[in-house]
């Protein structure tokens, strides 16, 4: 039994006739932060979506290979995608809170899976909002529409709404790209504070962010996983010349 939270073996994936992933293999350590980097269109978002099978929404997709998350084969036909998504949370590039109240946003996921009393739901919402440091700012405004929050608050809320389900893995697709640098710093601190408790996989276009944040780093290029390893090692002494060139900013 390895300590891998996510184990990807020879995954290839097609949107119709277009092959977006080619024989990707990757192992993501449990409890750490792993950054996924690579130029636009290389398949980072696609790979992330495969982990909780959100790629199936595109329709007409095909996938081969094997993805294990905490020992479960998540691509198996018998897997309930709803249960899977409860354990593998996804944060989107653009903060996308639902057009409901702050409280409803945080409690929605929990209320989908179990029946809770109002008090229990409220307590869970409080925990989650405290975890992302929104509680003090919003505790008197739990009824306001989440769309009226600032972008940073919206993104914090989008992370908070995953937490009541106690997910095993947090997938983040460029969680800071819509935010200014101060908010980015705040979200990064939040991610750091979740380290250990959650396994995070963060897609980023910022090499500096990958370096600041990630224990491990994986580099993708044109649907392939080129190289993965501890962040410092990858940045200082990558094996593959393409990895060296990309991380040094020689192409993007």
């Amino acid at each position, binding site marked *: 039994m390895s300590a891998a939270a996510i184990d990807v073996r020879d995954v290839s994936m097609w949107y119709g006739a277009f092959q977006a992933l080619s024989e990707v293999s990757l192992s993501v350590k449990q409890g750490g932060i792993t950054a996924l980097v690579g130029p636009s269109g290389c398949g980072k978002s696609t790979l992330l979506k495969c982990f909780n099978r*959100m790629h199936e929404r595109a329709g007409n997709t095909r996938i081969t290979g094997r993805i294990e998350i905490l020992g479960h084969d998540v691509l198996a036909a018998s897997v309930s995608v*709803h249960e899977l*998504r*409860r354990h593998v949370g996804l944060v989107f590039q653009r903060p996308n809170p*639902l057009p*409901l109240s702050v409280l409803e946003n945080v409690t*929605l*996921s929990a209320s*989908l*899976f179990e029946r809770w009393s109002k008090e229990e739901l409220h307590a869970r919402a409080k925990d989650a909002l405290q975890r992302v440091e929104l509680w003090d700012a919003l505790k008197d405004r739990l009824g306001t529409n989440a769309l009226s929050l600032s972008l940073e608050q919206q993104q914090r809320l989008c992370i908070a709404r995953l937490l009541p389900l106690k997910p095993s893995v947090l997938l983040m697709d460029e969680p800071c790209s819509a935010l200014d640098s101060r908010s980015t710093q705040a979200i990064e601190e939040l991610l750091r504070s979740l380290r250990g408790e959650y396994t995070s996989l963060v897609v980023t276009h910022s090499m500096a962010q990958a370096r600041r944040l990630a224990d491990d780093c994986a580099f993708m290029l044109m649907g392939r996983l080129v190289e993965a390893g501890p962040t410092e090692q990858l940045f200082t002494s990558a094996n593959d010349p393409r990895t060296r060139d990309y991380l040094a900013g020689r192409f993007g």
Partner: protein
Amino acid sequence: MSARLHRSRWSRGVERLFELGIRLGGFAAVVLLSGIMLFVVGEAWPFLLGRFDAIEFFTSTEWFPDSVVKVRYGALALFVGTLSVTALAMVAAVPVGLLGAIYLAELAPPRVREPGKIIIELLAAIPSVVWGFIALTVVSPLMVSVLDLPVGLNVANGALVLALMSLPVIISLGEDALRAVPDSYREAAEALGATRWETTTRVVVPAARNGLLAAVLLGVSRVVGETMAVLMATGHSVRIPHSIFDPVRTLTATIAAELGEAPKGGEHYRALFTIGLCLFVITFVINWLADRLIRRAAHRV
């Protein structure tokens, strides 16, 4: 470069002409509509100032406009007639219409959705006389034989026909409202583990709430203003119905049935225009509400 920078006199002229045409069209529409309104008010005005007695008009069920001995203009039964047929029609049409809209917008596969929408639009294109004819020749005999009623022209028959007529409005406007909900909301809900149905009920329908309400209101307004089909389907009896199988007469049907016989400019004629004015006010308020809801929905999304 310089040749393209300056548009020709010709193209500017054409543009002016178009602009003028559009202005004239809009102006004509406004003038016409206010003209119609002024006409209705003008025709009703002498009655409103003279014979009209609000207490009689709104609380009495005695509608004897051309009685020789005692003329009465109590329109309560007509209001109740419209209300009962409308209410019953909406009880049937609102749940079916909303579920239909939800099915078409959220759950149906494309190969069902497209033909479905075409059928709905065809349904909307059936003229109301045809619906009246169906009420008269199909629904009525069916009610007589199945329910063992003496007559098949009643509230239930009218409501059924009106429900069928308002369904296309509710379904197609409701579907529009649901389709206007950004897909990112559905994506977000599904990423939290919501099923298709949970996504629809917990997220999409609440997000489209105002648009759906507007669809229902416009369905109501269609039903309130409908004349020909109710005239044919509800029987002719100016009285407060005690069951849904009693015949009634609505405001619209009264105007259609009596205006031809009422001498132009006479009291009866002007009383009918007063009823018309009431209908105008009712539909205006409903449409205004619907419009506000749609605006608010557009504002939020």
